[in-house]
């Protein structure tokens, strides 16, 4: 054996940027994440060429999965052309030769910050959610060692208490995005800061979801057909954002999650947060062929 067969010929960067041994570590952790849905799996989390907090966790998972035949869609707040999404998508194709798309239907991997597309994901698709804070217990326990012990004991009483106090104080649960959910009846996870609108899309879904926090060095998964139940009281139903009656002022879409655009003259208009769905709806209205897949919500009702 010599040094030359311990290593490979020098190259400035590996395929898919990550060194093969970084990928092997992430693969091992992804397998454990699938085996224990919703359980936060610690990983080394190498540095990648974007800043921590900007999607480095999602990026490491995507870089591990990616191959030349992959087609990636990257969204931030639902938009493909949002600055950070564009930057990540460009990086992915630059280091892998994978295809890029804005169309949810065409993607093999969807990496997202804060949204799940409105078109239903299929069983051959992988959703990679970027996670800023993987710990649903952080609001009640900032110390990660203690929080881990609470997960070990399935000690979620203090989370319930927070929700109960909101009910008492405000007459409703005030949790906005990142609504905590019980996964496979065992681990409470944060679904990442997706709106409440998107959480049901993880429950008994057909696709595979990875959630990865690069800065906090934790990744977890929701396999297909896995129970993801938002924490609610039996007599107070889970409430998604009240967007079903809003209409997108650009595309005419209704029954999707909206961005509110304040108007100088007062009041607001709304636009579909899933920007490419909006584009496809406009194209269809203009007579172009643009396929829109089945939506998770129909007539304001979640269909799954």
């Amino acid at each position, binding site marked *: 054996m010599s040094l030359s067969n311990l290593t490979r010929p020098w190259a400035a960067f590996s395929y898919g940027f990550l060194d093969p*041994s970084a990928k092997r570590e992430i693969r091992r952790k992804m397998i454990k994440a699938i085996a224990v849905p919703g359980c936060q799996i610690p990983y080394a989390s190498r540095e990648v060429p974007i800043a921590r907090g900007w999607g480095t966790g999602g990026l490491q998972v995507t870089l591990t999965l990616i191959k030349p035949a992959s087609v990636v869609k990257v969204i931030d707040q639902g938009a493909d052309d949002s600055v950070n999404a564009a930057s990540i998508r460009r990086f992915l194709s630059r280091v892998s030769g994978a295809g890029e798309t804005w169309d949810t239907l065409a993607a093999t991997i969807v990496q997202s910050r804060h949204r799940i597309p409105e078109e239903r994901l299929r069983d051959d698709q992988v959703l990679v959610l970027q996670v800023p804070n993987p710990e649903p217990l952080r609001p009640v326990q900032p110390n990660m060692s203690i929080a881990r012990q609470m997960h070990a004991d399935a000690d979620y009483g203090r989370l319930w208490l927070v929700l109960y106090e909101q009910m008492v104080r405000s*007459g409703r649960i005030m949790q906005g995005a990142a609504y905590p959910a019980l996964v496979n009846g065992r681990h409470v996870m944060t679904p990442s800061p997706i709106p409440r609108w998107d959480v049901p899309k993880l429950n008994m879904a057909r696709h595979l979801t990875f959630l990865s926090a690069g800065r906090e060095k934790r990744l977890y998964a929701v396999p297909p057909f896995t129970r993801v139940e938002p924490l609610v009281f039996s007599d107070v139903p889970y409430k998604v954002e009240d967007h079903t009656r809003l209409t997108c002022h650009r595309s005419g879409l209704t029954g999707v999650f909206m961005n509110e655009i304040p108007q100088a003259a007062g009041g607001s208009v709304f636009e579909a947060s899933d920007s490419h769905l909006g584009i496809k709806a406009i194209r269809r209205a203009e007579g172009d062929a643009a396929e829109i897949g089945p939506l998770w919500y129909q007539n304001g009702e979640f269909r799954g």
Partner: protein
Amino acid sequence: MAYVATRGGERAIEQAERLYREQLGTIDAARVQGLRDALPWLIDRVMGEASLYDADLAALALAQAGGDLYEAVLLLRAWRTTQPRIAIAAPVLQEDLFTHRRISAAFKDIPGGQILGPTLDYAHRLLATDVLGGADFVPVPVTPAPQAAPAQQPSLAAWQKAMGLVADPPRAEVATDDIPDVTREPLLFPAARAHSLQSLARADTGGVLALGYAAMRGYGNAHPTVNELRLAEAEVMVRHPSGVSFSAGRVKVSQAEVTSKGKSGQLELGFCATFGWNEVKVIAGATLDLNAGGAEKGSAVEEEFVLYHTEPVESSGFCIHFKLPHYVTFQSALDAMRGAAVADPAKEEVPA
């Protein structure tokens, strides 16, 4: 397409990056070489925080980042990610270091002697404004001592151990090739000793100073005395697959040991070492190490608190990430707020 035209994100980011790079101008080998030669202490600091010892790459990163330290460290760390690990260097013993500077505040004199080496400690910090007027600052040549100090110096802690002043800390029984590596394994708490020291070694100098200073001012449990501070060079010994050990070169290292009287009646030691010469970091880091034992959960000197919050790439990245759009989460919060305003809490059924 109207929907897209008003956004134009892709073009905007491209032009914004161009603007930044245009303002920095052309980066050539001469600029990189110039930085490397002119700013050795900064290069050292960057190499330490990057945990990548290569002065040329550090200078290149500084050039590309225009001197923004967090950007430079991120560039180097990201580059490091792409590199395979081909060998594991042998551990370095204190007494084998090629020592340039070694001082102790604990004793007037120590076995092996106090060696000042290069320092501004006792200099008057006067700005050489004449340089701007065209008069070069030419350093006065050093007059060598009649007898050079020995390159290798004993460890003061070894003498203290022999005198029964310092408890011999427990040693982890681990083969040197199996010493845990925090860049390849997750940091968990309570942390492996190797992980703590590695994390301190690559911690943010400013962050370590802030927390270490807080500990020194009384937010910790122990007041440090500098037992030994060293600036040195370490031989990097690696093993060829044939079994032969050879030197792959030398790296500059700093290390500090601080001490205080422990509850056991013996002295306790805190330790920190890093790549490059960076005295502030190792003294502050050793102070935090000294304070970590028995620290209260969530206190500013507890290991988990210290190591999470002094990680330069994580802390700076998360800080600037707040510039990213958060309008979906904001919209979700607004919805809950408006919903609460409509509901009358008094009439709302609350589960018992």
